[in-house]
Protein backbone atom coordinates (compact mmCIF):
# COMPACT_ATOMS: atom_id res chain seq x y z
CA UNK A 1 0.00 0.00 0.00
CA UNK A 2 1.30 3.42 -0.94
CA UNK A 3 1.14 6.37 1.47
CA UNK A 4 -2.09 7.40 -0.32
CA UNK A 5 -3.61 3.98 -0.04
CA UNK A 6 -3.46 3.35 -3.79
CA UNK A 7 -3.93 0.00 -5.51
CA UNK A 8 -1.04 -2.46 -5.29
CA UNK A 9 1.61 -1.99 -7.94
CA UNK A 10 1.35 -5.49 -9.45
CA UNK A 11 -1.18 -4.44 -12.02
CA UNK A 12 0.86 -1.67 -13.45
CA UNK A 13 4.42 -2.83 -12.79
CA UNK A 14 4.75 -4.72 -16.05
CA UNK A 15 4.67 -1.52 -18.14
CA UNK A 16 7.67 0.87 -18.46
CA UNK A 17 5.71 3.73 -16.88
CA UNK A 18 4.60 1.34 -14.16
CA UNK A 19 8.22 0.40 -13.41
CA UNK A 20 9.14 4.07 -13.31
CA UNK A 21 6.25 4.77 -10.93
CA UNK A 22 7.39 1.89 -8.68
CA UNK A 23 10.95 3.31 -8.61
CA UNK A 24 9.66 6.76 -7.72
CA UNK A 25 7.41 5.37 -4.99
CA UNK A 26 10.39 3.54 -3.46
CA UNK A 27 12.33 6.79 -3.56
CA UNK A 28 9.38 8.56 -1.97
CA UNK A 29 9.36 6.05 0.88
CA UNK A 30 13.08 6.55 1.43
CA UNK A 31 12.63 10.31 1.46
CA UNK A 32 9.67 9.99 3.84
CA UNK A 33 11.80 7.90 6.21
CA UNK A 34 14.58 10.46 6.10
CA UNK A 35 12.09 13.25 6.75
CA UNK A 36 10.52 11.49 9.72
CA UNK A 37 13.95 10.80 11.22
CA UNK A 38 15.09 14.35 10.75
CA UNK A 39 11.82 15.76 12.07
CA UNK A 40 12.15 13.55 15.17
CA UNK A 41 15.76 14.64 15.76
CA UNK A 42 14.80 18.26 15.34
CA UNK A 43 11.85 18.00 17.70
CA UNK A 44 14.14 16.37 20.29
CA UNK A 45 16.62 19.20 19.93
CA UNK A 46 13.92 21.86 20.27
CA UNK A 47 12.48 20.12 23.33
CA UNK A 48 15.91 19.96 25.01
CA UNK A 49 16.69 23.54 24.13
CA UNK A 50 13.33 24.73 25.43
CA UNK A 51 13.95 22.99 28.74
CA UNK A 52 17.43 24.49 28.94
CA UNK A 53 16.05 27.94 28.16
CA UNK A 54 13.53 27.69 30.99
CA UNK A 55 16.13 26.54 33.48
CA UNK A 56 18.64 29.14 32.34
CA UNK A 57 16.13 31.98 32.58
CA UNK A 58 14.91 30.88 36.00
CA UNK A 59 18.47 31.02 37.34
CA UNK A 60 20.06 33.87 35.45
CA UNK A 61 17.38 36.39 34.50
CA UNK A 62 16.88 37.54 38.14
CA UNK A 63 20.67 37.77 38.63
CA UNK A 64 21.21 39.84 35.50
CA UNK A 65 18.23 42.02 36.43
CA UNK A 66 19.73 42.68 39.86
CA UNK A 67 23.20 43.34 38.46
CA UNK A 68 21.88 45.71 35.81
CA UNK A 69 19.71 47.56 38.31
CA UNK A 70 22.72 48.12 40.60
CA UNK A 71 24.98 49.14 37.73
CA UNK A 72 22.37 51.58 36.49
CA UNK A 73 22.30 53.12 39.97
CA UNK A 74 26.10 53.40 40.04
CA UNK A 75 26.11 54.88 36.55
CA UNK A 76 23.43 57.43 37.45
CA UNK A 77 25.28 58.46 40.62
CA UNK A 78 28.51 58.99 38.68
CA UNK A 79 26.69 60.83 35.91
CA UNK A 80 24.96 63.12 38.39
CA UNK A 81 28.32 63.90 39.97
CA UNK A 82 29.76 64.97 36.62
CA UNK A 83 28.39 68.45 36.24
CA UNK A 84 30.63 69.72 33.44
CA UNK A 85 30.28 68.94 29.75
CA UNK A 86 33.71 67.40 29.26
CA UNK A 87 34.28 63.99 27.63
CA UNK A 88 34.27 62.20 30.98
CA UNK A 89 30.85 63.67 31.89
CA UNK A 90 29.46 62.85 28.45
CA UNK A 91 30.75 59.28 28.74
CA UNK A 92 29.27 58.97 32.24
CA UNK A 93 25.84 60.13 31.08
CA UNK A 94 25.94 57.85 28.02
CA UNK A 95 26.89 54.92 30.22
CA UNK A 96 24.05 55.76 32.65
CA UNK A 97 21.51 55.77 29.81
CA UNK A 98 22.86 52.53 28.39
CA UNK A 99 22.86 50.89 31.84
CA UNK A 100 19.30 52.00 32.54
CA UNK A 101 18.08 50.62 29.19
CA UNK A 102 19.81 47.32 29.89
CA UNK A 103 18.33 47.21 33.39
CA UNK A 104 14.83 47.68 31.96
CA UNK A 105 15.41 44.90 29.42
CA UNK A 106 16.73 42.38 31.94
CA UNK A 107 14.01 43.28 34.46
CA UNK A 108 11.45 42.46 31.80
CA UNK A 109 13.18 39.14 31.06
CA UNK A 110 13.24 38.31 34.77
CA UNK A 111 9.52 39.09 35.10
CA UNK A 112 8.71 36.59 32.34
CA UNK A 113 11.18 33.90 33.46
CA UNK A 114 9.98 30.67 35.07
CA UNK A 115 10.23 30.80 38.84
CA UNK A 116 12.18 27.55 39.16
CA UNK A 117 14.53 25.57 36.94
CA UNK A 118 12.71 22.96 34.90
CA UNK A 119 13.60 19.34 35.58
CA UNK A 120 15.59 17.60 32.90
CA UNK A 121 13.26 15.45 30.81
CA UNK A 122 15.15 12.95 28.72
CA UNK A 123 12.74 11.76 26.01
CA UNK A 124 12.11 8.07 26.57
CA UNK A 125 12.53 5.61 23.68
CA UNK A 126 8.73 5.14 23.77
CA UNK A 127 8.16 8.86 23.41
CA UNK A 128 10.58 9.07 20.49
CA UNK A 129 8.99 6.09 18.84
CA UNK A 130 5.49 7.53 19.30
CA UNK A 131 6.52 10.87 17.85
CA UNK A 132 8.09 9.07 14.91
CA UNK A 133 4.86 7.16 14.27
CA UNK A 134 2.81 10.34 14.48
CA UNK A 135 5.17 12.13 12.11
CA UNK A 136 4.91 9.26 9.65
CA UNK A 137 1.12 9.28 9.88
CA UNK A 138 0.42 12.97 9.71
CA UNK A 139 3.42 14.82 8.37
CA UNK A 140 2.06 17.58 6.13
CA UNK A 141 4.59 16.84 3.40
CA UNK A 142 3.34 13.30 2.97
CA UNK A 143 0.13 14.42 1.32
CA UNK A 144 -0.48 16.44 -1.81
CA UNK A 145 -3.98 17.62 -0.86
CA UNK A 146 -3.88 21.26 0.30
CA UNK A 147 -6.78 21.00 2.78
CA UNK A 148 -5.27 17.85 4.22
CA UNK A 149 -1.88 19.55 4.52
CA UNK A 150 -3.40 22.39 6.50
CA UNK A 151 -5.08 19.93 8.84
CA UNK A 152 -1.90 17.89 9.25
CA UNK A 153 0.10 21.04 9.98
CA UNK A 154 -2.14 21.77 12.95
CA UNK A 155 -1.96 18.17 14.17
CA UNK A 156 1.83 18.11 13.77
CA UNK A 157 2.17 21.31 15.78
CA UNK A 158 0.16 19.71 18.59
CA UNK A 159 2.36 16.61 18.36
CA UNK A 160 5.53 18.71 18.60
CA UNK A 161 4.23 20.47 21.68
CA UNK A 162 3.24 17.16 23.27
CA UNK A 163 6.71 15.79 22.51
CA UNK A 164 8.41 18.84 24.00
CA UNK A 165 6.31 18.43 27.14
CA UNK A 166 7.04 14.69 27.30
CA UNK A 167 3.29 13.99 27.09
CA UNK A 168 3.02 10.40 25.85
CA UNK A 169 -0.75 10.26 26.39
CA UNK A 170 -1.35 13.23 24.11
CA UNK A 171 0.83 11.70 21.39
CA UNK A 172 -1.03 8.41 21.69
CA UNK A 173 -4.39 10.19 21.41
CA UNK A 174 -3.21 11.92 18.25
CA UNK A 175 -2.01 8.64 16.79
CA UNK A 176 -5.25 6.84 17.68
CA UNK A 177 -7.36 9.58 16.15
CA UNK A 178 -5.36 9.41 12.94
CA UNK A 179 -5.74 5.65 12.81
CA UNK A 180 -9.52 5.88 12.71
CA UNK A 181 -9.66 8.39 9.88
CA UNK A 182 -11.00 6.99 6.57
CA UNK A 183 -8.11 6.43 4.21
CA UNK A 184 -7.70 8.61 1.22
CA UNK A 185 -9.36 6.88 -1.73
CA UNK A 186 -7.45 7.07 -4.97
CA UNK A 187 -7.90 5.22 -8.19
CA UNK A 188 -6.07 7.36 -10.67
CA UNK A 189 -4.07 6.18 -13.61
CA UNK A 190 -0.29 5.72 -13.62
CA UNK A 191 0.41 9.23 -14.98
CA UNK A 192 -1.62 10.97 -12.28
CA UNK A 193 -0.06 8.81 -9.57
CA UNK A 194 3.41 9.55 -10.89
CA UNK A 195 2.74 13.29 -10.79
CA UNK A 196 1.46 12.99 -7.24
CA UNK A 197 4.53 11.01 -6.17
CA UNK A 198 6.91 13.52 -7.77
CA UNK A 199 5.15 16.42 -6.09
CA UNK A 200 5.35 14.74 -2.72
CA UNK A 201 9.06 14.15 -3.27
CA UNK A 202 9.49 17.84 -4.03
CA UNK A 203 7.57 18.79 -0.89
CA UNK A 204 9.69 16.48 1.22
CA UNK A 205 12.93 17.84 -0.25
CA UNK A 206 11.75 21.37 0.51
CA UNK A 207 10.96 20.45 4.09
CA UNK A 208 14.34 18.70 4.47
CA UNK A 209 16.06 21.86 3.23
CA UNK A 210 13.89 23.92 5.57
CA UNK A 211 14.88 21.72 8.51
CA UNK A 212 18.54 22.18 7.57
CA UNK A 213 18.01 25.94 7.51
CA UNK A 214 16.15 25.93 10.84
CA UNK A 215 18.89 23.82 12.41
CA UNK A 216 21.57 26.14 11.03
CA UNK A 217 19.74 29.21 12.42
CA UNK A 218 19.27 27.45 15.73
CA UNK A 219 22.93 26.58 16.09
CA UNK A 220 23.89 30.24 15.62
CA UNK A 221 21.72 31.39 18.52
CA UNK A 222 23.81 32.21 21.62
CA UNK A 223 21.38 30.23 23.74
CA UNK A 224 22.08 27.15 21.63
CA UNK A 225 25.85 27.72 21.89
CA UNK A 226 25.54 27.88 25.67
CA UNK A 227 23.26 24.83 25.67
CA UNK A 228 25.66 22.86 23.47
CA UNK A 229 28.63 23.70 25.69
CA UNK A 230 26.61 22.75 28.76
CA UNK A 231 25.24 19.49 27.46
CA UNK A 232 28.36 17.38 27.89
CA UNK A 233 29.03 18.74 31.37
CA UNK A 234 25.42 18.13 32.40
CA UNK A 235 25.50 14.58 31.11
CA UNK A 236 28.59 13.99 33.26
CA UNK A 237 26.48 14.96 36.27
CA UNK A 238 28.00 18.39 36.88
CA UNK A 239 26.33 21.79 36.90
CA UNK A 240 27.58 23.49 33.74
CA UNK A 241 26.39 26.94 34.80
CA UNK A 242 27.60 26.95 38.41
CA UNK A 243 30.72 28.96 37.64
CA UNK A 244 28.76 31.53 35.62
CA UNK A 245 26.27 31.91 38.45
CA UNK A 246 29.07 32.27 41.01
CA UNK A 247 30.81 34.89 38.89
CA UNK A 248 27.59 36.86 38.57
CA UNK A 249 26.94 36.71 42.30
CA UNK A 250 30.44 38.00 43.01
CA UNK A 251 29.90 40.79 40.51
CA UNK A 252 26.60 41.71 42.15
CA UNK A 253 28.21 41.80 45.59
CA UNK A 254 31.03 43.89 44.23
CA UNK A 255 28.71 46.42 42.58
CA UNK A 256 26.64 46.55 45.79
CA UNK A 257 29.81 47.38 47.73
CA UNK A 258 30.80 49.99 45.21
CA UNK A 259 27.36 51.57 45.31
CA UNK A 260 27.54 51.72 49.10
CA UNK A 261 30.97 53.39 48.92
CA UNK A 262 29.72 55.91 46.38
CA UNK A 263 26.65 56.73 48.46
CA UNK A 264 28.82 57.03 51.53
CA UNK A 265 31.26 59.31 49.71
CA UNK A 266 28.37 61.46 48.44
CA UNK A 267 26.96 61.91 51.91
CA UNK A 268 30.31 62.93 53.47
CA UNK A 269 32.21 66.20 53.06
CA UNK A 270 35.13 65.82 50.63
CA UNK A 271 38.60 65.13 52.02
CA UNK A 272 41.26 67.73 51.93
CA UNK A 273 44.35 66.97 49.97
Amino acid sequence: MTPDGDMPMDAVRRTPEGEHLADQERLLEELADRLVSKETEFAALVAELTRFRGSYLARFAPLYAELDRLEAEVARLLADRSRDDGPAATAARAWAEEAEAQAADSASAAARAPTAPEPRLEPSPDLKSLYRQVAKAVHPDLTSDEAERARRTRVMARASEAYAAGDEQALRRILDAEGTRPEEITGDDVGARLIRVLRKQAQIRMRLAELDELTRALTQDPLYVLFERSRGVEQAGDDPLAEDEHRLQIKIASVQARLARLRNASSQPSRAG
Partner: protein
Amino acid sequence: MPEDRSRAVVSLAVTAPSSASRLAARTLADRARAATNSGLLADRIAALCHGDQSQSARIAAFVSELQITLEAAPPGSWDPFNLRRDGVTIPCEAWTRTMREPSECDIESAIQCMATVHSVGAPARGERMRALRLLGQEGYDYLVSAIGPREGEDANVKRDA
Protein backbone atom coordinates in the same frame (compact mmCIF):
# COMPACT_ATOMS: atom_id res chain seq x y z
CA MET B 1 5.57 26.33 1.44
CA PRO B 2 3.77 28.90 3.62
CA GLU B 3 6.18 30.66 5.90
CA ASP B 4 4.07 30.16 9.02
CA ARG B 5 3.95 26.44 8.45
CA SER B 6 7.40 25.75 9.78
CA ARG B 7 6.59 28.01 12.71
CA ALA B 8 3.49 25.95 13.36
CA VAL B 9 5.41 22.70 13.17
CA VAL B 10 8.28 23.94 15.28
CA SER B 11 6.06 26.20 17.36
CA LEU B 12 8.64 26.74 20.05
CA ALA B 13 11.56 28.95 20.87
CA VAL B 14 13.51 28.46 17.72
CA THR B 15 11.90 31.01 15.49
CA ALA B 16 11.84 33.99 17.84
CA PRO B 17 15.06 35.64 19.00
CA SER B 18 14.42 36.27 22.65
CA SER B 19 15.66 37.90 25.79
CA ALA B 20 17.00 34.45 26.67
CA SER B 21 19.28 34.67 23.64
CA ARG B 22 20.49 38.12 24.68
CA LEU B 23 21.22 36.96 28.22
CA ALA B 24 22.95 33.84 26.91
CA ALA B 25 25.12 36.07 24.73
CA ARG B 26 26.10 37.98 27.88
CA THR B 27 26.95 34.78 29.72
CA LEU B 28 29.16 33.67 26.84
CA ALA B 29 30.81 37.10 26.70
CA ASP B 30 31.34 37.02 30.48
CA ARG B 31 33.01 33.63 30.13
CA ALA B 32 35.28 34.84 27.36
CA ARG B 33 36.12 38.01 29.26
CA ALA B 34 36.84 36.11 32.45
CA ALA B 35 39.15 33.77 30.58
CA THR B 36 40.94 36.58 28.76
CA ASN B 37 41.08 38.83 31.78
CA SER B 38 42.41 36.22 34.13
CA GLY B 39 44.91 35.04 31.54
CA LEU B 40 46.25 38.52 30.80
CA LEU B 41 46.24 39.54 34.43
CA ALA B 42 47.90 36.36 35.54
CA ASP B 43 50.71 36.94 33.04
CA ARG B 44 51.22 40.59 33.99
CA ILE B 45 51.00 40.04 37.71
CA ALA B 46 53.19 36.95 37.70
CA ALA B 47 55.85 38.89 35.83
CA LEU B 48 55.66 41.77 38.28
CA CYS B 49 55.69 39.51 41.32
CA HIS B 50 58.64 37.46 40.06
CA GLY B 51 56.79 34.22 40.64
CA ASP B 52 55.58 34.90 44.20
CA GLN B 53 52.27 33.06 43.92
CA SER B 54 50.66 34.19 47.17
CA GLN B 55 51.47 37.78 46.34
CA SER B 56 50.10 37.30 42.82
CA ALA B 57 46.88 35.94 44.25
CA ARG B 58 46.41 38.89 46.60
CA ILE B 59 47.02 41.41 43.87
CA ALA B 60 44.80 39.57 41.41
CA ALA B 61 42.01 39.61 43.98
CA PHE B 62 42.44 43.34 44.45
CA VAL B 63 42.41 44.05 40.73
CA SER B 64 39.38 41.84 40.36
CA GLU B 65 37.61 43.83 43.07
CA LEU B 66 38.15 46.99 41.08
CA GLN B 67 36.16 45.35 38.29
CA ILE B 68 38.62 46.33 35.68
CA THR B 69 38.73 44.31 32.54
CA LEU B 70 41.74 43.91 30.36
CA GLU B 71 40.99 43.43 26.72
CA ALA B 72 43.20 43.07 23.70
CA ALA B 73 44.02 46.44 22.17
CA PRO B 74 43.46 47.04 18.45
CA PRO B 75 46.37 46.14 16.15
CA GLY B 76 49.00 48.86 16.06
CA SER B 77 48.38 50.09 19.61
CA TRP B 78 51.48 50.72 21.64
CA ASP B 79 50.24 48.57 24.53
CA PRO B 80 48.99 45.00 24.10
CA PHE B 81 45.83 45.61 26.11
CA ASN B 82 43.37 48.27 27.16
CA LEU B 83 41.57 48.74 30.43
CA ARG B 84 37.83 48.77 30.51
CA ARG B 85 35.55 49.86 33.26
CA ASP B 86 31.99 51.12 33.49
CA GLY B 87 31.42 50.48 29.83
CA VAL B 88 34.29 52.71 28.76
CA THR B 89 37.52 51.54 27.18
CA ILE B 90 40.50 53.57 28.23
CA PRO B 91 43.99 53.11 26.80
CA CYS B 92 46.62 52.45 29.45
CA GLU B 93 48.34 55.71 28.67
CA ALA B 94 45.24 57.65 29.67
CA TRP B 95 45.01 55.76 32.93
CA THR B 96 48.51 56.81 33.92
CA ARG B 97 47.33 60.42 33.95
CA THR B 98 44.33 59.92 36.21
CA MET B 99 44.99 59.34 39.88
CA ARG B 100 41.90 60.54 41.60
CA GLU B 101 40.17 57.48 42.99
CA PRO B 102 40.43 53.69 42.75
CA SER B 103 38.17 53.52 39.75
CA GLU B 104 40.43 55.89 37.88
CA CYS B 105 43.83 54.85 39.16
CA ASP B 106 46.71 53.85 36.99
CA ILE B 107 46.29 50.19 37.57
CA GLU B 108 49.54 49.19 35.95
CA SER B 109 51.51 51.49 38.22
CA ALA B 110 49.41 50.43 41.18
CA ILE B 111 50.21 46.80 40.50
CA GLN B 112 53.88 47.68 40.31
CA CYS B 113 53.65 49.62 43.56
CA MET B 114 51.91 46.81 45.34
CA ALA B 115 54.38 44.31 43.96
CA THR B 116 57.25 46.46 45.18
CA VAL B 117 55.70 47.20 48.55
CA HIS B 118 55.20 43.54 49.18
CA SER B 119 58.43 42.25 47.79
CA VAL B 120 61.08 44.54 49.28
CA GLY B 121 62.16 43.77 52.82
CA ALA B 122 62.51 47.38 53.90
CA PRO B 123 59.51 49.37 55.18
CA ALA B 124 59.47 51.02 51.75
CA ARG B 125 57.73 54.16 52.87
CA GLY B 126 58.48 55.82 49.54
CA GLU B 127 56.70 53.05 47.71
CA ARG B 128 53.75 53.23 50.03
CA MET B 129 53.53 56.94 49.43
CA ARG B 130 53.66 56.33 45.73
CA ALA B 131 50.82 53.82 45.99
CA LEU B 132 48.86 56.31 48.08
CA ARG B 133 49.39 59.01 45.50
CA LEU B 134 48.37 56.71 42.70
CA LEU B 135 45.37 55.18 44.36
CA GLY B 136 44.11 58.03 46.50
CA GLN B 137 43.31 57.63 50.17
CA GLU B 138 40.24 55.53 49.56
CA GLY B 139 42.09 53.26 47.18
CA TYR B 140 45.06 52.93 49.48
CA ASP B 141 42.87 52.08 52.46
CA TYR B 142 41.11 49.58 50.31
CA LEU B 143 44.43 48.11 49.19
CA VAL B 144 45.59 47.71 52.75
CA SER B 145 42.32 46.15 53.82
CA ALA B 146 42.40 43.84 50.83
CA ILE B 147 45.94 42.56 51.09
CA GLY B 148 46.98 43.72 54.55
CA PRO B 149 50.11 45.64 55.58
CA ARG B 150 53.43 43.89 55.83
CA GLU B 151 54.89 43.31 59.25
CA GLY B 152 56.25 46.59 60.60
CA GLU B 153 54.33 48.65 58.09
CA ASP B 154 52.14 51.53 59.11
CA ALA B 155 48.73 50.93 57.60
CA ASN B 156 47.56 54.38 58.48
CA VAL B 157 49.58 56.39 56.00
CA LYS B 158 47.66 59.49 55.00
CA ARG B 159 47.92 61.43 51.83
CA ASP B 160 49.23 64.51 53.64
CA ALA B 161 51.84 62.50 55.61
